[in-house]
């Protein structure tokens, strides 16, 4: 029962984050909202697996956590450097 309540609480939190993603105002607010929405989705999937007594779906939650991080990093890299091919300062560059 408590599991369902926690699930509902997270869904309400998701709704709040959707509002933030819709209204902005800056692009960084939206990125923050998308990233945090991803974390909440991971939690929803984990909780949902336990609510329906089939926690085997946790693999998807793991994939989500990974993808969410990579996508956030790609978006931020895009906004910082203007394209994704940009290579930051790396030890290899100094050797060459």
């Amino acid at each position: 029962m408590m599991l369902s309540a926690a699930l509902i609480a997270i869904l309400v939190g998701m709704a709040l984050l959707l509002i933030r993603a819709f209204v902005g105002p800056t692009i960084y607010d939206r990125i923050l909202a998308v990233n945090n929405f991803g974390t909440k989705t991971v939690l929803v999937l984990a909780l949902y697996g336990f609510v329906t007594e089939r926690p085997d779906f946790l693999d998807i939650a793991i994939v989500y956590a990974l993808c969410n991080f990579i996508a956030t990093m790609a978006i931020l890299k895009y906004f910082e450097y203007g394209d994704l091919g940009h290579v930051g300062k790396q030890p290899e560059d100094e050797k060459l």
Partner: protein
Amino acid sequence: MIAIEFLVNFTLLGFLLATALVISRTNRLFQSVMLFGIYSLLTAALFVVLDAVDVAFTEAAVGTCISTILMLSALSLTGSRREVAMHRKSPALALGVSIALGAALAVGIMDMPEFADPNAPANLHVAPYYLTESVSEIDIPNVVTSVLASYRGYDTLGEVVVIFTAGIGVIALLAGRTGKRDED
């Protein structure tokens, strides 16, 4: 237990609808890329709720990760920071088409069997055989995987070839650019 499943289902669908509406109203490409990220997170969560775990897996990897990155790469190639001009010449026509299409789909849905009905035609043909025999025949615990990779192997091969070709196209478009940069 059933009630919470319905609640999650409908809440996620509601979020999906809201996101889709906002995407269609926004005229900045970055915002829509970002919102598409949320959209595919929601879609994949819905797939999990509907028990289509394998599709959810694909949607999580492709929708959230790869397509976001691909769209951003495309944006950085085209460099279109401008707002897209919206052409709204005849909203009445578009509205009419949408309503007619929606109504046709609704009529079509009425003829479909109940959701998860074990006696639906699709569940009576080869599905029971796969469900009972695939583990002993193919030795892979996931039935969907054994259907896709073995029983329907040729079909999947065709799909993979299509995706491979598309991938080559994308690489050819994106890699040419970075190659030039390296020479600079």
